[in-house]
């Protein structure tokens, strides 16, 4: 393979994924089954766990990062129903890493967590206030309306 990284955190709620993309200025392409990457395994790194060579490049949905030549694929984990993020971080994929804070795309994972928590809290009747926390974290203050 080229250099495809699989992100450990699974994203389970597409509503939160879409909202996180909107906040970060990324484009969520619902239902597109292929994502742009190098296109062939060059065998210099191990395949992501549970992913076969043939599965690379295939996904359920796509996230586009502005200015990046490659894309992020959302690959469904049949065991959990969640989505794993796969992308090629080499060459044209470097922009993905640079934009989202590293190979683990922490900015996207954090935004997903914030959006997911906000959705769930609002669904339970909480008023949600967002505040900056320590060490780059974000606090959501939930109060009963």
């Amino acid at each position: 393979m080229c250099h495809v990284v699989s992100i450990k955190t699974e994203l389970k709620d597409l509503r939160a994924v879409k909202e996180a993309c909107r906040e970060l200025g990324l484009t969520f392409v619902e239902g597109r089954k292929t994502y742009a990457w190098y296109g062939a395994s060059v065998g210099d790194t191990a395949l992501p766990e549970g992913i076969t060579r043939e599965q690379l490049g295939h996904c359920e949905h796509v996230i586009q990062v502005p200015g990046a030549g490659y894309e992020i694929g959302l690959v469904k984990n049949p065991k959990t129903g969640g989505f794993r993020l796969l992308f090629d971080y080499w060459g044209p994929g470097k922009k993905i890493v640079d934009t989202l804070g590293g190979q683990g795309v922490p900015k996207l994972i954090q935004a997903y967590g914030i959006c997911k928590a906000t959705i769930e809290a609002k669904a339970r009747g909480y008023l949600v206030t967002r505040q900056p926390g320590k060490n780059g974290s974000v606090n959501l203050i939930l109060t009963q309306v």
Partner: protein
Amino acid sequence: MKSIVVNVSESGEITIEAVGFKGNACEKATAALEKAMGTPGTRKKKAEYYQTETHAGTKQAT
């Protein structure tokens, strides 16, 4: 005042803390949220846990 603070770390790790609840009212308040978030059920009990809720109406919407 009762509130719940959800902290999302820079790497996306989520911790949920109930503020101003006494006894297990805190767990009741956060349990539904934790389940929805898929957060592992590790809890650190704060001093409030060992106090008794003294007034009615502590049940939170689930």
